[in-house]
């Protein structure tokens, strides 16, 4: 299995806009890319994880202005079913060129929908830019609430940012307090479906990005498809990103490869375990 997927280039980068960096998760790659693409007419809107009706519960939303894209910045470690509004983005919002951000599994869903667009008449041919984000695992809303409120002892209303890094789950409050717990505490709350996931770095995004591999405040960026390559080159030329060679930064690509390998091998074992879970019986394997 190819741990990092196909890619044309890999760099460390961040947005050159301090406004975007103010509350984006890492280097603001996703937000910057969508705003740039919107302003250049590469997309007419983007599907993002917008603010939901409960604190930190994301709601998939079709953003058509830079303000809406900005409002959806940052990582919510619970499920945002972004694919759910893909039909709406074309039918209700009338977009011809759709941007979409998503976890590796959502990128898989997107590519499957492009090849087998069952029940989506002339929708998936309108995808103009797919931004994948690295992902080790996700949590249900209730799980995240449990982690933040019960384990980190932070009220969701006062939570400013959550992050996973350096083996810990971090909760930052609006008033500047920081709470952290070891990741081994969070494992049992993970979404079960994540345990069969065989992709860490969003192999099927046009461009994919995450924090791992680059210094704090920067992002690791893989440019993967021809489409992604064209758009990325234009954006860099326009000066919206600051870019460094990936082998010039610490900890670099080795850590990305290490984590990807860990995730994929662990989950491949889980698939084998599932296949033999019962007595002469097992669970389904979705990968044919």
């Amino acid at each position: 299995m190819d741990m990092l997927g196909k890619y044309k280039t890999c760099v460390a980068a961040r947005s050159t806009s301090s406004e975007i960096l103010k509350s984006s998760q890492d280097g603001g790659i996703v937000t910057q890319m969508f705003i740039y693409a919107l302003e250049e007419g590469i997309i007419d809107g983007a599907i993002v994880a917008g603010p939901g009706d409960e604190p930190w519960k994301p709601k998939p939303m079709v953003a058509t202005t830079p303000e809406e894209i900005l409002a959806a910045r940052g990582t919510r470690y619970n499920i945002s079913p972004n694919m759910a509004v893909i039909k709406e983005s074309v039918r209700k919002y009338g977009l011809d060129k759709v941007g979409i951000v998503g976890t590796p599994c959502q990128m898989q869903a997107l590519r499957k929908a492009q090849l087998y667009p069952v029940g989506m008449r002339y929708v998936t041919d309108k995808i103009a830019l797919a931004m994948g984000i690295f992902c080790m695992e996700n949590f249900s809303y209730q799980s995240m609430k449990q982690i933040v409120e019960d384990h980190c002892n932070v009220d969701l209303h006062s939570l400013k940012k959550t992050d996973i890094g350096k083996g810990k789950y971090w909760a930052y409050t609006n008033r500047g307090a920081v709470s952290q717990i070891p990741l081994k505490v969070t494992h049992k709350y993970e979404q079960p479906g994540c345990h069969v996931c065989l992709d860490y770095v969003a192999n099927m995004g046009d461009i994919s990005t995450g924090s791992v591999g680059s210094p704090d405040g920067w992002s690791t960026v893989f440019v993967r498809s021809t489409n992604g390559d064209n758009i990325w080159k234009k954006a860099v030329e326009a000066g919206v990103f600051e870019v460094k060679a990936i082998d010039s930064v610490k900890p670099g690509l080795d850590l990305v490869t290490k984590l990807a390998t860990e995730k994929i091998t662990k989950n491949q074992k889980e698939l084998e375990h599932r296949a033999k879970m019962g007595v002469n019986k097992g669970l389904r394997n979705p990968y044919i």
Partner: protein
Amino acid sequence: MGLLSLIFGRKEKKPVEVKPPQPVATPKPVASVKQESHKEERPVSNKITLGHVHMSGCIGCCVSIADTYGGLFTLLDNYADLVYSLTLVDVRHIPKMDVALVEGSVCLQDELSIEEIKETRERATVVVALGGCSAYGNITRFSRGGQFNQPQHESYVPISKLIDVDVYIPGCAPNPEVIRNVAVMAYLLLKGNDAQKKLATAYLAPLMALAKDGSRIESDSEACGCDIMLKVINQGLCMGCGTCAASCPVFAISMEYGKPNIDREMCIKCGACYSSCPRSFFSFDVCGDYENILGAITAAMNPGGN
């Protein structure tokens, strides 16, 4: 060439001789006559033959075929000869053909339908269940009879309950793009080179697996909306992407706290949600190669390069 070119009077580069589908007069058995002189004068000689068989359905699938727009002309011009079709071809009995696209379910009280579906199986190399009714029964599953002008018609089953089916195209109505993709892949499978055959096999494999499952007499796959519950969520596979909700034509699925909630009263059993879920089937080889495959399909549909 193709029938539609004639119907719509589109100009062909070469004048095409139109022959009625009668046995061609047997050439004189003279040994000295060279074989080449009897070659057919069709611009594309290795087209596949395609039929559209209509059972009990609403004609929506037929509209979907037409909804491939220019694509239908390209398909008929370059890849397939339409040998049977309710609306377009004046042929009364199901002929021999490579691929039969069957639309609609079978009414058990309609003898003719039963005969026709059996004939289709006998005469077609590949039988494709086109659309929800044909594959899963869809809305016709809810029929209880008592309707004019055939009140006794009350039991409708997907075609796989009576014959083996090779490929399923779920959905109500089926998506024109999937029809196009399957048509191109069926062509490559039957007429392509080794690499193309391999690609087509990989692409069609999951749709064939759905058909195989549906063709088992004890199959539980008519549940459709419930398939998401039974085969994805109950199996610990759902990761909350929302594709199922987007693909449901009747908005029976909403995402609640990141997971699909299925309103079973609303589900019409079209099969779209389960087949589009990335956790029903997913091939890294096929889906991971999306750029090349989509490129190849686009190229096949625009042979002139426009």
